[in-house]
């Protein structure tokens, strides 16, 4: 009897999705969209008052060399090696920042809190962080602010009042624009495309797709949206679903969007093995390392993601500007070295800018 209960539970786990099923599914969510302009005009920032925190009794650090510790989610992986390199590059360029990276060896919030606490005790001027948990990290960051330390986040935010600024790597509408523009550049303004995503309920993917639909309708109205298929976070299923799309639509299908770093390489593999390189384009969100074989073979031309080296670089410049007092509440932009002026969004966030499109020429420079 216990076995029967087990199998009933098994069945239930497969059928819980029944309530989510709907007849036509584009894959997007129902939240309001905010498509960017079709040209490169940046979005007009909706005015929102500064909602970050402030250090208490911070000493005047203007122009002085500051000691900074960078605490990423974890160390030893390509992505945070890249942000760390960006921070080191910026520090070297400015000549007035003594920066080091020290993070937990696993993406563990407890280890991260202990580490930050130790640096508060040992005395630093600034802390850069990428939070493993936005809420759990807040108390220790507030403690740092209380000790007069400048605190700036990047990659993964904390609650706003626990840090001064956060460098946001990409907004949904920015990613959507880069994706659709890349696809249009490859398959033309009247091409037909399909999407392979993770699941109906993955919030980021649903948001990106909704913004892509809005941007495509606005800026590339003649492109044809064939369908969106879900493939969970399953590489072989993503491969099979991509193949099925190719089989179903034949020559009509000109492009496939991969919405996850699992789906994009699998879609590229499907196109490669179907010998459709050059006639079916693959554009997607993915890390460069996963895509190198396909980009190198010329089967994939555009991989969309932000550049983590630039992200670290911008975070270091933001911290310097905060310490100097040049970036204060109410500012609308900040100078970030070679990246130029970056705009302030959402009250206390700095937008890194348009996402990076990795291609054959630059993908070899990245290792994450």
């Amino acid at each position, binding site marked *: 009897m216990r076995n*029967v209960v087990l199998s009933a539970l*098994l069945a239930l786990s497969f*059928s819980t999705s029944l309530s989510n099923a709907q007849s036509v599914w584009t894959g997007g969510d129902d939240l309001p969209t905010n498509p960017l302009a079709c040209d490169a005009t940046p979005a007009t920032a909706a005015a929102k008052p500064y909602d970050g925190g402030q250090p208490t009794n911070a000493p005047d650090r203007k122009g002085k060399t500051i000691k900074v510790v960078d605490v990423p989610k974890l160390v030893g992986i390509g992505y945070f090696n890249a942000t760390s390199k960006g921070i080191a590059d910026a520090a070297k360029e400015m000549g007035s920042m003594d920066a080091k990276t020290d993070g937990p060896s*696993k993406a563990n919030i407890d280890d991260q809190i202990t580490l930050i606490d130790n640096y508060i005790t040992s005395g630093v001027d600034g802390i850069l962080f990428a939070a493993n948990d936005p809420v759990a990290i807040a108390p220790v960051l507030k403690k740092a602010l209380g000790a007069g330390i400048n605190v700036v986040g990047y990659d993964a935010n904390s609650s706003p009042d626990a840090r001064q600024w956060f460098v946001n790597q990409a907004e949904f509408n920015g990613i959507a624009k880069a994706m659709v523009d890349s696809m249009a550049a490859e398959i033309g303004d009247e091409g037909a495309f399909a999407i392979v995503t993770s699941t109906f309920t993955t919030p980021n993917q649903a948001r990106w797709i909704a913004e892509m639909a809005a941007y495509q309708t606005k800026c590339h109205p003649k492109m044809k949206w064939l*369908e969106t298929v879900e493939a969970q976070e399953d590489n072989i299923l993503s*491969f099979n679903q991509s193949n099925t799309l190719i089989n179903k639509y034949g020559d009509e299908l000109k492009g496939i969007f991969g919405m996850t770093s699992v789906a994009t390489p*699998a879609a590229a593999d499907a196109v490669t093995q179907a010998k459709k390189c050059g006639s079916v384009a693959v554009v997607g969100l993915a890390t460069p390392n*996963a895509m*190198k074989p396909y980009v190198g073979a010329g089967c994939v031309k555009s991989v969309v993601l932000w550049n983590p080296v630039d992200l670290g670089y911008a975070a270091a410049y933001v911290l310097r500007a905060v310490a100097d007092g040049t970036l204060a509440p109410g500012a609308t932009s900040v100078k970030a070295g070679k990246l130029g002026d970056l705009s302030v969004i959402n009250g206390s966030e700095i937008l890194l800018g348009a996402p990076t499109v990795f291609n054959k020429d630059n993908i070899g420079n990245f290792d994450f």
Partner: protein
Amino acid sequence: MTTTVEATARSRTAPQRPGFFKRLFAEYGQEIVVLAAIVMLFAIVTMVNPRFISANNLTTIFSGNAYIAVAAIGMAMVIVTGNIDVSVGALIGVLATISGSLAVAGYPIWFAWLAPVVVGMAVNAIIGILVAYARIPSIVVTLGALSILRGGLISVTGGTWITDLPPDYLIAQKQIFGLPVPLVFMVVLTLLAAFWMRYTAFGRSLYAIGGNAEAALATGIPIARRTVAVFVIHGAFAGLATILFATQLQVIQSTVPPNLELTVITAAVIGGVSILGGSGTVIGSTLATILFATIGSALIFVNVSAYWLRAVIGLLILATVLADMLRRRGRGA
């Protein structure tokens, strides 16, 4: 005396053995139902969109999910003996990483293919020993193994992917006699396993163990040793499935498909393997895998959200288990 004559006469006019088809259905009822469902689906969807039976789409359906069918062969054997293994998905992930790492490190290709089979057998030998000799229920042992394997995989790989696999290693992308290798693997292994389970004493004993362990013991079947053996064989099939899983794409991810173990168990159950042990065949589990793949592809071809796939499979599980229960009740077992 007269009654005996009468009985003999009756047996001459109406043979005591039922007809061929009746026997076939009694023995392979579930397999036939699944096969009929596949044929019906093909007929319907092809009428909607003839591209459904294009050579390419047939390859996608039959070859793209072959690794699940291969893993389900071993799973079917384990379930027939009245056990279960919920760790096979995580095991395949670990084995794929081992195999891919060896291939990239420059070890001979045959070694990179052999390693997952050997390691899979070794890991499952431990599981089998814990089940058979320590008398821990298999669901508990394999739940533990699931956590260990999954956690270990993430800790060791740190989430990085294996790229730059040598082209010769990617066997799942190759063809034998014009047929995709995964398809050949699936068919050959299914037939071998089916014959082994039907016609060898060892194979038959698995049904005896799952059907009635006490009776099996009384007839001299070494239950504990056979249980370990069946887990080891299951490990070998997990290793063979890994070879297909790891070589289908040019990169090996450090994650495994979510719920892979459930998919494999489901294939066995819908294929007619009784979740209570003692009956079912690997032909059924392979047909069930093909049925899932056909449903998945069909849903895209007829523009239905893939969420229905899970709903349909859920209903199929319930129907299959219910039918199994009713059959048992009918037999008074």
